[in-house]
């Protein structure tokens, strides 16, 4: 009996000790000053802002992507999920046709067959899309393209004239040729002349280096190489990722990856146009990163420095003259 009472008293003491100390600590506790607590406006979800598209909807661009069966899952599907959606028409050119869907060119894969693939691809385009497309862009499955900016660049060229556009390289061909990786564009007339060249034997498969070989055919068929730099002389097509160009470097001799450039390249922030058209060697995560940076992430309300269309500028009425080949 005594033990029970003893335990009972002990327990009471335990509880008392516990709660009195709890009370003591609690009275020193932080009390929220509810009166000053922040007021919130609960906003309803905003519908997605649809930016006003001022681009010229009448320039129809066909994009053809040079790819192969083994890269469809690992690379090409990410092209399809990102920038290719903005093409008026997109065709994925491969050695064989699949449900991707790819167009089968009946050419084996491999570096030695790259130019064969290009020739067959352009023959396909000439056969099927001369009537419904204005410009023909060739890109790799690791090229990222900003279609709106391509459209803007193309708007100053006439597709019925022989135009060959992209990132101009100097070596091997007298007037140069356009980098394959950075993507190049042929006007309708240029495509006609390319096809004619092969039909008449004036152009041949003399090399597997497809971009250079195509440049040779362009030269033979007297197609003009256009200057796609913006009004400030900044490049739009880029054969390497952005970080190869835009990082500040002290003045230096041309790095290896700029050795081929026809126009003197600029390193640092002046390298690249705000309306950049392409970047190359872009792996899938970077495709989405570029998509995010180009079409999504922005600084709210920021007034961009570069406004080529600014009507208030007195020195530009027509911002770029229409160039015509001689």
């Amino acid at each position: 009996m005594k033990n029970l009472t003893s335990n009972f008293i002990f327990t009471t003491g335990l509880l008392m000790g516990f709660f009195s100390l709890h009370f003591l600590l609690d009275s020193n506790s932080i009390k929220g000053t509810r009166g000053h607590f922040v007021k919130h406006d609960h906003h309803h979800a905003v519908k997605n802002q649809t930016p006003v598209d001022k681009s010229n909807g009448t320039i129809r661009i066909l994009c053809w992507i040079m790819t192969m069966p083994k890269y469809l899952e690992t690379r090409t599907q990410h092209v399809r999920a990102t920038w290719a959606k903005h093409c008026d028409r997109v065709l994925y050119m491969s050695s064989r046709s699949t449900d991707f869907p790819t167009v089968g060119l009946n050419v084996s894969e491999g570096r030695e067959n790259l130019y064969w693939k290009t020739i067959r691809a352009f023959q396909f385009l000439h056969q099927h899309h001369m009537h419904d497309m204005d410009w023909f862009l060739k890109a790799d499955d690791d090229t990222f393209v900003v279609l709106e900016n391509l459209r803007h660049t193309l708007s100053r060229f006439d597709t019925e004239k022989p135009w060959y556009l992209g990132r101009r390289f100097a070596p091997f061909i007298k007037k140069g040729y356009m980098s394959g990786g950075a993507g190049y564009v042929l006007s309708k007339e240029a495509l006609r002349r390319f096809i004619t060249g092969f039909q008449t034997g004036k152009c041949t498969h003399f090399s597997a280096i497809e971009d250079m070989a195509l440049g040779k055919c362009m030269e033979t068929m007297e197609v003009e190489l256009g200057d796609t730099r913006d009004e400030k002389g900044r490049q739009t097509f880029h054969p390497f990722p952005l970080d190869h160009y835009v990082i500040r470097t002290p003045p230096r001799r041309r790095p290896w990856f700029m050795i081929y450039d026809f126009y003197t390249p600029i390193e640092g922030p002046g390298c690249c146009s705000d309306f950049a058209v392409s970047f190359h060697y872009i792996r899938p995560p970077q495709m989405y990163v570029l998509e995010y940076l180009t079409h999504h992430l922005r600084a709210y309300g920021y007034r961009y420095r570069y406004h080529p269309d600014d009507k208030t500028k007195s020195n530009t009425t027509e911002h770029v003259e229409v160039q015509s080949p001689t």
Partner: protein
Amino acid sequence: MLSEGGSFMKGMAVGGIFCLGLSLFGSFSPATEHGPGEHHHHHVKAPSKDELTRLSDGHVLELVNQVRVSCIIMVQPKILVYWATVLDTWSKHCDKAVFYTSESSKALEAVDLNEKDDWARLRKALKHAYENAGDLRWFFVAKATTFAIIENLKHLVLTKDPEEPFYLGNAMKSGELEYVAYESGLVLSYEALKRLVNVFEDEEKCPERGHALWTMSEDKQLAVCLKYTGVFAENGEDSHGKGLFNSKSVDSLITDSMRDNPTNVVEGCCSDLAVTFNGMSPNQMQVMMFGVYRLRPYGHDFHDLLVFQPPEGSDND
């Protein structure tokens, strides 16, 4: 009778010690109160476009002037490249940017706090920023390893009153304590900073050498001190509820999204109006400047209600 009294005293003693023990372990903290009916709002959302269009032009202009930001950037000589990069990139978009260092460097200028302890150093920097606030009413605290888009920060707090206490960022929880993660950047309104600087004087509530038996990180210490003044951490979000303060880099977040939302990678990733990213290299920060302030698709007009001018004497934005 005496033995019963003794029993009682033993009981009390054990009970008391038990209570103390639990409080020291932090997970049970009698020092923090969550009374009934006390409902904490844990997020602050950016204003929606509708909300902004309802404001008069005059009011908007007033707000643009009021929403000026003082940046408090914590640097160290051992991260000199980050220091130089922040100086050359996002800090140019602050209305005022002051660099605070643990020790001076011959290469770059900063307020030398001559303090190795991270928490003590942060306290000194905040105090200095408060005393030199001038007419600035918003304070952004970041390490040089963070990348920030100040215009988007301004947009977030545009309609908020800096005379109210705001403590925003990437809000995280550690036990009962809600705090803003340091590496994603912290936002303090003038009122919050004022209360904080005042509570710094209280060695019991906000000791200079930290609270518990072990050292808490500075961001948690800050949260504890602010809590004493009635200021609570809130998560900064866009009008869709997406977090604006990121503890990871863009690359890392995109990679996560490729895994988690393979059919909607970019939409499922990060906000269009993100304020901060963390874990980006100095080179990536330079790329971000181009990506945020230059690269865009021709022909798109956002019709934003505010205009923020580009900083003078800068060529990478």
